[in-house]
């Protein structure tokens, strides 16, 4: 097996606040292989977006990476000097943000923004960069790109703008794309197009994709593996079919139970009682224990570490007593 494109080990991100340091990410580890789409799900505030920002090196003060390692194709990038990290951003890691309406600078033509980005990272002439920009717009599915390249962002619809954003993110052929809720601000009909576009780009270019979303439908549709995050930790990670069909962690079970099915059995959807703890009040032991129906004494004292269970890995004490072999 080849080295993963992205390897995150025991990542910790802290935010200094007036009432002490808050740990937003606490010991997150995962890998993404070439051409693989890793979905990252969880509630708002679970640390999905912060993880993405940490990888691309855009955690702004008062936040900081407090520990762990991030490696891009073997190169450690979490402690690079700002100027070197800037060269990696956009060239080797592309990022797509949630809101396409505000991601583009309204005062510049779409083409100017593309050409500027291309020429920042690749040694191309103005005309060559423009040709590349037109090709990129065509690739992300914008009709009549040679005409649209001179349009301003406000002349594009939401879905088209997100395509432009994607073109901007891939214009230097990055090895990794971080898509932070790329479809949340879009129409449902447009969502599917954008997801299949991201999937296709990942497949065609062998790009690894980290797809952050809270939409389980998007995850099931687009990703190869999925990481379920809760309160700054990875609760469960594994191949998407396994995690969706056979979730192990009680929180993941709750999430999957909350997906409506088209079969139309009129059962009420399962709801996880309570809400995620605030960062300033993470409970001792397993952070999920106050909401967990299966919690026992150990959960309230000891923090569970990720345990391999077949293809999946789960951070839950329920699986510690059972020998791993018997479950496989």
């Amino acid at each position: 097996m080849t080295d993963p494109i992205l390897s995150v080990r025991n990542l910790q991100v802290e935010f200094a606040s007036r009432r002490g340091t808050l740990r937003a990410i606490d010991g997150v580890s995962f890998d993404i292989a070439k051409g693989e789409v890793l979905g990252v799900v969880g509630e708002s505030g679970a640390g999905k977006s912060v993880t993405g920002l940490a990888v691309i090196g855009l955690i702004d003060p008062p936040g900081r990476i407090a520990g762990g390692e991030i490696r891009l194709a073997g190169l450690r990038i979490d402690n690079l000097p700002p100027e070197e990290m800037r060269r990696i951003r956009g060239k080797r890691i592309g990022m797509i943000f949630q809101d396409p309406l505000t991601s583009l600078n309204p005062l510049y033509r779409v083409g100017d923004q593309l050409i500027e980005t291309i020429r920042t990272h690749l040694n191309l002439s103005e005309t060559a960069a423009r040709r590349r920009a037109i090709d990129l717009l065509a690739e992300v599915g914008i009709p009549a790109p040679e005409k649209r390249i001179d349009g301003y962002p406000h002349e594009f619809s939401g879905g088209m703008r997100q395509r432009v954003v994607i073109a901007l993110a891939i214009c230097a052929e990055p090895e990794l794309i971080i898509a932070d809720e790329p479809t949340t601000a879009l129409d449902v009909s447009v969502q599917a197009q954008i997801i299949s576009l991201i999937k296709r780009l990942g497949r065609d270019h062998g790009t690894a994709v980290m797809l952050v979303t809270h939409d389980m439908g998007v995850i099931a549709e687009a990703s190869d593996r999925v990481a379920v995050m809760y309160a700054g930790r990875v609760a469960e990670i594994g191949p998407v079919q396994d995690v969706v069909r056979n979730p192990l962690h009680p929180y993941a079970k709750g999430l999957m139970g909350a997906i409506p099915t088209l079969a139309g059995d009129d059962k009420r959807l399962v709801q996880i009682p309570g809400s995620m703890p605030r960062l300033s009040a993470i409970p001792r032991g397993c952070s999920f224990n106050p909401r967990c129906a299966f919690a026992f004494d150990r959960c309230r004292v000891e923090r569970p570490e990720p345990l391999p269970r077949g293809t999946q890995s789960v951070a839950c004490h329920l699986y510690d007593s059972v020998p791993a072999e018997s479950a496989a």
Partner: protein
Amino acid sequence: MLAFTLRRAVQAIGVMFAVGIIAFSMFRFAGDPINQIVSLDTPAAERAAVRKSLGLDDPVPVQFVRYFADAAQFKFGVSYQFRQPVSTLLMERMPATLELAICATVFAMVSGILMGVYSALRRDTLLAKLFQAVSLIGISLPTFLIGILLIYLFAVTLGWLPSFGRGEVVKLGWWTTGLLTLSGLKALIMPSITLGLFQMTLIMRLVRAEMLEVLRTDYIRFARARGLTTRAIHFGHALKNTLIPVITVAGLQFGSVIAFSIITETVFQWPGMGLLFVQAVQNVDIPIMAAYLLMVSLIFVTINLVVDILYTVVDPRLRATVGRAT
């Protein structure tokens, strides 16, 4: 675009008409102008003759139409104190005021934008905090006090700069300029700073606040995620977005720079329209006051029009809405 410009121009003419009514009414309500012209012991028959020669015995609407028609051709009657056409007097004085106002605005824009950008990007440095403190002084100290302090320091104590007047001027056709002689340039420095200081602090604070606001937007974050250089982000993407409100304020402020120049011109005995106006007020020289009022409002209205049009040049989104509305 043309229809938009025309519509704005029609509105501007409406405003000028209203100002014209106010200017005209000054003649009616600021005392009998004949008393200002003739001496105390002039007989009534002579007074009536003067009144007739000036057309002041005609019905009010006739007088108004005549005044307005004349004003539209830049004829504002004859000054009571100088016995010269007001338009000639204004034309003589206008270059001085405009040169001062333009220098003050350029000074305010350049230093205001530089200081504003610096204090937004290097928020925690000592220099940025110093700028903030200086801007507080600039906003709260009255113009005449700053002028007098500058005169005391640079003219009286150090003797570097002249304390009053325009220095030597060069005639270019009807325009007189102090920009071509050394003494003229030296004489411009202190009045320009005095007049521009308030605008400078205003622009600096505005640029700083806008820049901080823009730096928090998604497109700046996305620009960083695209790996653009800090310079391209700050001066290409952020500054251009910052400049839209700055253009408005600076443009509109240019009108008040000209209006405020009354004080600066008085302090520095600057031979411009403002000084002429102050003298006119002291002597109840109504034709000059009315003409000055019309001139200043014409400048304001023109600036508003230009700013509106400039907007659409800078911001493509407005171009689209304007295009759709027409």
